[in-house]
């Protein structure tokens, strides 16, 4: 029987993948995972075996990531946001006529509920989240993966709600386009 310490050490790479995706910064990701492993090794009795070990570790990691984002919050500034935005409204990529109505109706994605839990779909989700611009991706994942409220994100990073809404709007449209291109266009029936 492998010791708990060894099992935790074996999951380090797995935790790093999650931390990199959220933090977009190798040093911060390493810090978050190291803190997570130390916390887990320091209190192994807190693992009650009712959940999977990796579920327990991801729960700890989320808190460490939130701590790090708060600590480095001032580095996500309004200027760093504006520097990675182009001036194009991402809605323009969808295709509207001059009167604001669709040029072409959006594609029917079908009813893909079962597909959404497949390993292949999760790989596409990972890839699409990874291709978001760094600050935009970080804000989007704070909202969607760490499940922080808009108020908390604004407070932690000293952003206005308007700034945050613009970034989340852009991130959602980018993600939609990426999923459509890399998943739904390939799996939906015409």
């Amino acid at each position, binding site marked *: 029987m492998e010791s708990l310490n060894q099992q935790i050490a074996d999951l380090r790479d797995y935790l790093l993948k999650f931390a990199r995706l959220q933090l977009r910064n190798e040093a911060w990701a390493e810090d978050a995972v190291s803190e997570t492993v130390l916390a887990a090794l320091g209190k192994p009795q807190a693992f009650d075996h009712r959940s999977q070990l990796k579920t327990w570790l991801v729960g700890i990691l989320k808190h460490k990531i939130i701590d790090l984002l708060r600590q480095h919050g001032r580095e996500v500034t309004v200027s760093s946001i504006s520097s990675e935005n182009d001036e194009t409204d991402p809605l323009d990529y*969808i295709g509207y006529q001059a009167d*604001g*109505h669709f040029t072409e109706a959006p594609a029917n994605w079908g009813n893909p509920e079962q597909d959404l839990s497949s390993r292949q*779909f*999760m790989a596409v989700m990972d890839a699409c989240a990874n291709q978001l611009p760094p600050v935009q991706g970080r804000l989007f994942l704070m909202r969607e993966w760490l499940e922080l409220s808009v108020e908390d994100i604004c407070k932690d990073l000293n952003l206005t709600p308007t700034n945050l809404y613009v970034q989340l709007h852009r991130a959602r449209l980018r993600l939609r386009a990426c999923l459509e291109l890399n998943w*739904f266009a390939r799996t939906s029936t015409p």
Partner: protein
Amino acid sequence: PLNRTCKEVTALVIAREDRDLPLRERLALRIHMKLCDSCPVFERQILTMRNAMRQWRGYQGP
């Protein structure tokens, strides 16, 4: 005035994921959805994405 273009409606559908819309916008959205063939399809895409995000949050990797 409750008439909205598809572009305005798709922006509202996205915005609704992060904030509560004012009553006027909710009403405009509902009216537009009844009259438009395309926007309900876009709305279903966003709902599918919402479900996908929920699955992704719970996903623990292979």
